[in-house]
C-alpha cells in the first residue's frame, strides 16, 4: 500500500536536529495560486506555464526555506520530547511513544538505545511505520553514517550525515514506499 511521506527528521542525543528532509513542498501561498490559474486560461498558453511552474516547485525542496524548516524541527522535537516523557510517566519506564495523528498528518517516532530519535511525518491514514524507521536506522544510518570512517562521532550541525550514500539510499527507500 503506497504511503504519502512528508518529511523525516533525525535528532541526536544532544537534542539537535542533525538531518531533515522533505518529500513534499510546503503549500504555496494561496493568493498566488489563483491568479496563476486565471492567467493560464486567459492566455491559452496553459501547458508551457504549468511546466515552468512545476519545475520551479520541484526545485524548491532542494533549497528549503531555512527559517521555517528549523522552526518546524524545533517544534517537532519539543512535541515528541514532551509526549515521550508523558508516556513514560503514565505507562511506566518500559513504555515507548510510537506515534500520534492529527487530521492532517501522522508522526511516527522511533528512538534508539543511543538516544538517536527519528520522526517521520506521513499522511494521517498511514499504518505503523515503526519498522520503516527501524530499517532506516539499521540499514541506512548504521551502514552509511556510523560505519563511514570519514563521519565524525558527533554530528554537530549535521556533519557527516549528509553524505551521498545515505541520502541516495534514504530517498530511494522512501520513494519505494510512495
Amino acid at each position, binding site marked *: 500500500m503506497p504511503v504519502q511521506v512528508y518529511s523525516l527528521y533525525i535528532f541526536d542525543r544532544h537534542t539537535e536536529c542533525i538531518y531533515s528532509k522533505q518529500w513534499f513542498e*510546503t503549500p504555496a501561498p494561496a493568493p498566488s495560486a489563483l491568479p496563476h490559474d486565471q492567467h493560464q486560461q486567459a492566455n491559452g498558453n496553459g501547458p508551457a506555464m504549468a511546466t515552468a511552474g512545476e519545475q520551479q516547485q520541484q526545485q524548491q525542496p532542494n533549497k528549503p526555506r531555512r527559517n521555517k524548516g528549523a522552526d518546524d524541527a524545533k*517544534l517537532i522535537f519539543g512535541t515528541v520530547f514532551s509526549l515521550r516523557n508523558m508516556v513514560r510517566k503514565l505507562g511506566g519506564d518500559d513504555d515507548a511513544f510510537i506515534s500520534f495523528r492529527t487530521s492532517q498528518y501522522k508522526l511516527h517516532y522511533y528512538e534508539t538505545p543511543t538516544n538517536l530519535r527519528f520522526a517521520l*511525518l506521513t499522511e494521517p491514514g498511514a499504518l505503523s511505520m515503526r519498522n520503516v524507521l527501524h530499517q532506516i536506522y539499521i540499514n541506512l544510518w548504521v551502514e552509511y553514517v556510523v560505519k563511514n570512517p570519514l563521519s565524525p562521532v558527533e554530528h554537530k550541525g549535521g556533519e557527516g550525515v549528509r553524505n551521498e550514500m545515505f541520502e*541516495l539510499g534514504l530517498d530511494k527507500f522512501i520513494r*519505494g514506499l510512495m
Partner: protein
Amino acid sequence: MYYAQVRPQSVLETGCGETSDAHCPAQQLNSSIQLEADISTQNPVEQILGILALIVINKAGGLIYNRTFGDGLNQLNTNDYLVLAGTFHGVHAITTRLNPGHQPQQITAGGIPSRPDPPSGLEVMESENFRLQCFNTLTGTKFLLFTDTLQANVDVAMRKIYDLYADFVTKNPFYQLEMPIRCDTFDRKLNSYIREVNNAR
C-alpha cells in the same frame, strides 16, 4: 526482543558485501517490511482491559477532571496530573500548527475553491502500552481518553462521555464553567458507563 530478531539480518547483509550497491539494501528494505509487520502484531503485551482513564482539560490548559479506571496506568499525584494537562495543552497547540503536507484544494462544481477543514491538533497518540484519544470540543475543552491498545470504538465511548458531560455537568446549576468538575451524578453515570464498556470486552 524486537531488536534481537532484526539484528542478525543486517549483519547477514553486510556480510554479503552488498552494501556497496545502493540499490540492493533499499529493495530488501521494502520486501522485509511485511515480515516485520507480522512480528510486531504478535508482540505479546499484557492487556489491562478497556478504558483506563479520563482527563478533561479546560480551554486555558487547566486540569478540571481526572479519573482512572483500573490499574493500567501509573498513578500520579495531583500535581503531576496538573503538569500533564498543561504540557498536553501546549503540545496540542503545536501539533495544530505543524502542517507538513500540502492540502489538495477542493474545487467544487462552481469552480469556487471550498474552504479546507481547519487544522486539528493531536487526535490519537499511541504508545506500546496504551492509546490516547483526544477530543477537542468547539469551545476548546479537551477530553483525553486513555485506553488499552486494542480497545475498539473509542469514538463511540468518547461521544457518550461528551453526552454525559453536556447533560450532567453543563446542565448542573452548581457547576461553574472552566472550574474543576465536582458532580456526583456525572461521576456515577460515568462509572456505570465505563464499567459497562469494560465488562463487554
